[in-house]
């Protein structure tokens, strides 16, 4: 039985989709096919820090959807849920180097970290200054000696936007890396799934849930979460996500936050806004000020139904950089 998706050959999904992306957004990006990466149409921008991110495919619009003015200079898509190899990362890094160095934004997974590391070593050998920021905002995973460390999840989108704005305004590599680290350090996320997703080449769901079961603490790769519970009303589910976030990074009254309700790909917007309502209520009760917000499917797990909540504790500079113009396929304002 073929897997029920709008695809041709499972092995060609990433290539064909990237080709379509390039055609649809030819004004914004150029798509290189061998090795595969997506790069700003005007790259390299002389004197600007280049920003490269990437990782397994299946999280769209992350990362290609964020290539453009004010955000990423290049995105490197691996196979579905598989970190790209060093070759395309290196090629992308070279393509965006405008002489001011290149920042790698890497989600904290063993594969991503190792492959980006290798690419960075090779780029350095070619005389390009590379720094890496590793995102790890997922509070579902204990960051201890006994794990591979926290996963990088939805906070990555916020890091990419804010670091991208810093690079666009002319910050140095160290400055861009510093603000990226700062955003990551102030971002916390947690997700849940109502349904699994199906990796095209696997053809089977990533896990199996009974009709009344959900997974709490999932990542973005269709991997199971930490806990399986019975379905509960939306407000209770929101509480289950937001409580560990607020415990991990407490807020004082008057603190400002960016509230990000993210869909995992298959969740209707109507549900995301319904969840937003409750999250806003919880924050208001605690006197936290929602200074900015984002609601939608911005970092996904294929067709998975579910959501994640992210809070980013904002300072003045982050707000300014968040508001700065951005023009990418998936995030656009100010121009």
């Amino acid at each position, binding site marked *: 039985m073929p897997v029920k998706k709008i695809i041709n050959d499972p092995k060609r999904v990433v290539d064909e989709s990237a080709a379509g992306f390039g055609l649809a957004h030819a004004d914004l990006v150029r798509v290189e096919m061998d090795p595969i990466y997506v790069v700003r149409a005007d790259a390299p921008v002389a004197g600007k820090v280049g920003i490269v991110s990437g990782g397994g495919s299946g999280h769209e619009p992350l990362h290609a959807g964020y290539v453009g003015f004010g955000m990423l200079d290049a995105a490197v898509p*691996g196979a579905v849920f598989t*970190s790209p190899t060093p070759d395309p990362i290196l090629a992308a890094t070279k393509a965006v180097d405008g002489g001011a160095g290149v920042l790698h934004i890497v989600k904290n997974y063993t594969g991503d970290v190792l492959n980006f590391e290798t690419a960075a070593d090779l780029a350095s050998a070619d005389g390009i200054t590379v720094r890496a920021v590793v995102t790890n905002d997922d509070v579902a995973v204990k960051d201890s000696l*006994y*794990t*591979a460390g926290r996963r990088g999840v939805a906070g990555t989108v916020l890091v990419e936007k804010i670091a991208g704005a810093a690079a666009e305004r002319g910050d140095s590599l160290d400055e861009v890396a510093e603000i990226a680290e700062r955003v990551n350090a102030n971002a916390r996320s947690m997700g849940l799934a109502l349904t699994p997703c199906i*990796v095209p080449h696997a053809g089977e769901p990533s896990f199996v849930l009974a009709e009344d079961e959900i997974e709490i603490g999932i990542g973005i790769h269709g991997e199971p979460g930490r806990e399986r519970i019975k379905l509960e009303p939306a407000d209770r589910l929101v509480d289950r996500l937001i409580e560990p976030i607020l415990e991990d990074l407490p807020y004082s009254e008057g603190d400002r936050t960016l509230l990000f309700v993210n869909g995992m790909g298959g969740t209707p917007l109507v549900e995301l806004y319904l969840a937003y309502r409750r999250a806003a209520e919880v924050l208001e009760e605690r006197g936290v000020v929602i200074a900015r917000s984002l609601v939608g499917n911005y970092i996904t797990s294929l067709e998975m139904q579910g959501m994640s909540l992210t809070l980013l504790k904002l300072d003045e500079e982050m707000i300014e950089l968040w508001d700065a113009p951005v023009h990418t396929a998936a995030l656009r304002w100010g121009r």
Partner: protein
Amino acid sequence: MGLDITWAVDWVRLSADVIAEHRIELITLDREIGDGDHGENMDRGFQAVLPKLDDLPAGSTPGDVLKLVATTLISTVGGAAGPLYGTAYLKGAVAAGSAASLDGPAIAAVLAAARDGIVLRGKAESGDKTMIDAWTPAVDAAEAAASNGSDAAAVLAAASDAAWAGAEATEPLVARKGRASYLGERSAGHRDPGAQSTALLLQAASDAASASAGA
């Protein structure tokens, strides 16, 4: 009797076969405690090596083959397994040097270097429920066999058996490295996919050696 270029090429071919054959099994193991791509990743990598074997210049050594595998895996596999196996074959190639033939102690040294490479990159310890839990028993068994004077084929046979036992022994473990560690206690009761692929690859090495010896 030492193992030469024929063995090395056979090993790669057998590896590609056995990985293709067990592709779904590795995907399934990885789906249970990871993200379900290990079989696909490894298969993509070894299928990419195959055509390159034909381009090996005359006079190539086992070390050249290992290096070819290393660079191909690094540039085609991706994920955690790509750099980890890539480093393993690369360090193995360095240990093999330019020798035309590898005897028992040399094979044990290749395996030890490979394992050390994985540890260097991945920082896993024994018992973390990773491929290391197949590699380390295999290296120990290989070294013991070699120091008992076993020939290269026997060293690989010992390594293969130990790798299988090691892979099986990952089942009750709670993962502390890799994606499975996100599951915490729920990772127990499943075999680690990387340990399984290690056992498959070392068995292919041993099978290739028996075939060489028999031929």
